[in-house]
């Protein structure tokens, strides 16, 4: 019977039993709800912040500037509803009671605004503009000049030339980079620990004894890693797909910015990172006999992963193009979390990505040999935690155990 067939049978069992579990369904739904809620909230907040509407009262002579004030305010993104008043007292009472945001009285230099506490800054600017224009128009008319000529000449803005323009997409890119890296980090951490728990389950149930009478240790380990990895991939694809659809539907992130290469490279880094970490988690799991003991052996692996994520937030995200980030992205155990940040920011040349992929693949090969050895030597040793010398097969008592 070929290894491929055996590994496929083992992986299929892992996949089928896990994808049907309540844990998988609930965690997927929760993540989807979380992402959905986040995206909808973001979209809501963005849409809200751009529009303000004010109810403004104009008393007596002030009514002459209500139309131009409303027009200029609309241009600045503030909607003004005009309420004409004949009595100043009635208007002030409505400001007090909150019916009006502001009450404008008088004309020209004598124009006054009544507000409860503070005046809306846009309204203030617009009123200043319009009253000054009113004064200017009167002055020009008194001296026999046509106001429209001068006002026409004054209708210009200062030209602005940005010498160091802020890239509008930069924040978005960092957010996307962190999203990809964060998803990878959480998934690697969760599914890596599933691998360790799965190995311990078989060990504590002694199923491993029956299995290893039939299959080789490395086939069992690889089958388990493959099966659990496929479950993880299904979840990642599902979550990423829903997030993309929702994000583009609410126009929060446009699909071109979250470009296809970011998504695809994210998948590739997930597969590479998963292989690297799941091998270590499998080896760690094989060294203990009870689920409660897993933290004692898995902690160093978890530590490296957490460190990668912390470096992604503190070093890579603020400065994706910096030397520090570049160096970190080449360290194989960190690459799967750091490199996606650089790729999303568009500062990772293809050849650099290629080199780090090669380094990671070489690491996987080395870890496969190491994890295979530890697993083979440990998985049948029941009792306390397996000693490192035994796990590595360098026990002083002599030759490696089968």
């Amino acid at each position, binding site marked *: 019977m070929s290894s491929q067939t055996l590994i496929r049978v083992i992986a299929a069992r892992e996949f089928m039993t896990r994808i049907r579990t309540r844990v998988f369904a609930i965690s997927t739904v929760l993540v989807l709800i979380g992402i959905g809620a986040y995206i909808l909230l973001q979209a809501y907040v963005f849409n809200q912040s751009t529009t303000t509407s004010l109810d403004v009262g104009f008393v007596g002579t002030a009514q002459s500037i209500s139309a131009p004030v409303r027009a200029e305010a609309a241009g600045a993104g503030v909607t003004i509803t005009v309420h004409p008043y004949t009595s100043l007292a009635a208007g002030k009472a409505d400001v007090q009671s909150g019916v009006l945001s502001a009450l404008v009285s008088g004309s020209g230099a004598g124009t006054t605004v009544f507000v409860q506490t503070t005046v809306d800054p846009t309204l203030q600017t617009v009123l200043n503009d319009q009253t000054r224009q009113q004064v200017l128009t009167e002055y020009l008319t008194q001296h026999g000049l046509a106001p429209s000529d001068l006002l026409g000449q004054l209708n210009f803005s200062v030209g602005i030339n940005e010498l160091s323009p802020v890239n509008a997409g930069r924040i978005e890119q960092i957010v996307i980079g962190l999203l990809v890296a964060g998803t990878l980090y959480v998934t690697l951490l969760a599914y890596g620990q599933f691998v360790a728990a799965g190995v311990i389950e078989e060990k504590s*149930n002694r*199923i491993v*004894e*029956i299995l290893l009478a*039939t299959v080789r240790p490395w086939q069992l380990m690889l089958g388990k890693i493959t099966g659990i990895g496929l479950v993880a991939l299904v979840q990642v694809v599902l979550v990423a797909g829903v997030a993309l659809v929702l994000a583009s539907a609410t126009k929060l992130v446009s699909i071109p910015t979250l470009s296809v290469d970011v998504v695809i490279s994210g998948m590739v880094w997930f597969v590479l990172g998963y292989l690297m970490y799941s091998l270590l988690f499998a080896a760690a799991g094989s060294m203990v006999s009870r689920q409660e003991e897993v933290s004692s052996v898995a902690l160093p692996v978890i530590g490296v992963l957490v460190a990668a994520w912390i470096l992604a937030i503190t070093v890579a995200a603020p400065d994706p193009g910096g030397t520090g980030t570049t160096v970190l992205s080449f360290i194989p155990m960190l690459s799967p979390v750091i490199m996606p940040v650089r790729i999303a920011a568009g500062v990772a040349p293809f050849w650099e990505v290629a080199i780090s992929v090669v380094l990671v693949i070489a690491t996987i090969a080395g870890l496969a040999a190491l994890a295979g050895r530890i697993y083979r030597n440990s998985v*049948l040793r029941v009792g306390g935690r397996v000693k490192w010398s035994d796990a590595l097969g360098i026990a002083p008592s002599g030759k490696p155990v089968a």
Partner: protein
Amino acid sequence: MLELSHLTKRYGALEALHDLSFNVTPGEIFGFVGANGAGKTTTMRVVLGVLEADSGSVIWDGSPITFETRRRIGYIPEDRGLYPKMTVIAQLVYFGQLHGLNRKAAREASTTLLERLGLADRAKSQLQSLSHGNQQRVQLAAALVFSPDLLVLDEPFAGLDPVAVDAMTEIVRAEADAGKPVVLSSHQLDIVERVCDRVGIINHGQMVALGTVTELTDRGPLRFWVDAPSAAAGWYDHVAGTSLVEQDGSRWLLQLDDGADEQAVLRTALATGPVHEFRRDRPALTQLFRDVMSGKAVDE
């Protein structure tokens, strides 16, 4: 035929197996008996290749056992070796597939076995919802699903009620009758005595007694129960080489030295009046086992 020859295995200072040898022929149920830690499980793990012996060899049908031939062994480990949350049928199909059956064949074999074991209605239940006895039946089914050439059963009867034991032994007997060698270990010596064709007693990694149940129990001293109600004390005194072991009312347990004539004992008993019982006393395997463990040698 399965041959274990001169197996030795050390765990650091502890010698788990010391020059252990025995054979199991096709159609034979070999009972492996010993105290906890005597080396039974270690021996079975060596046969399964789950553990490697320091020296010695395991021969199957004339050549050293290989990984491929080991895959033809049906194995029940000492503790439960099944997935608690998997259904019974999925579990059996999985083990069938691991032993080389395709999905369809594995499913057919599993269904047939479950019917034979009276578990057809539990096929879709999670293993953990079954009683201990039924779980053990599933364990046996997992060992049989791929039609193995040899059975190695470590404590298959542990914790089973008499009915479940009968059901298990019936199936194991049927497998042996089909020409398969069967090795099983057990603490329940009455079951071993009843079920096994041959027995090996292991102590501290060494085989201390080996043979059929009759052969082993014959090795003890020659003793007879005589029920002679009219006999007076010392009635046997003038039969040479006879001594009293114990007396229970009118029943006398006499031990005969080598060369003593049991027919002479019977004639003497008859001379005293009626004789209601004259029976060879064979120690139960349990007694023999205790003797072996306490160091009373039962030599080869």
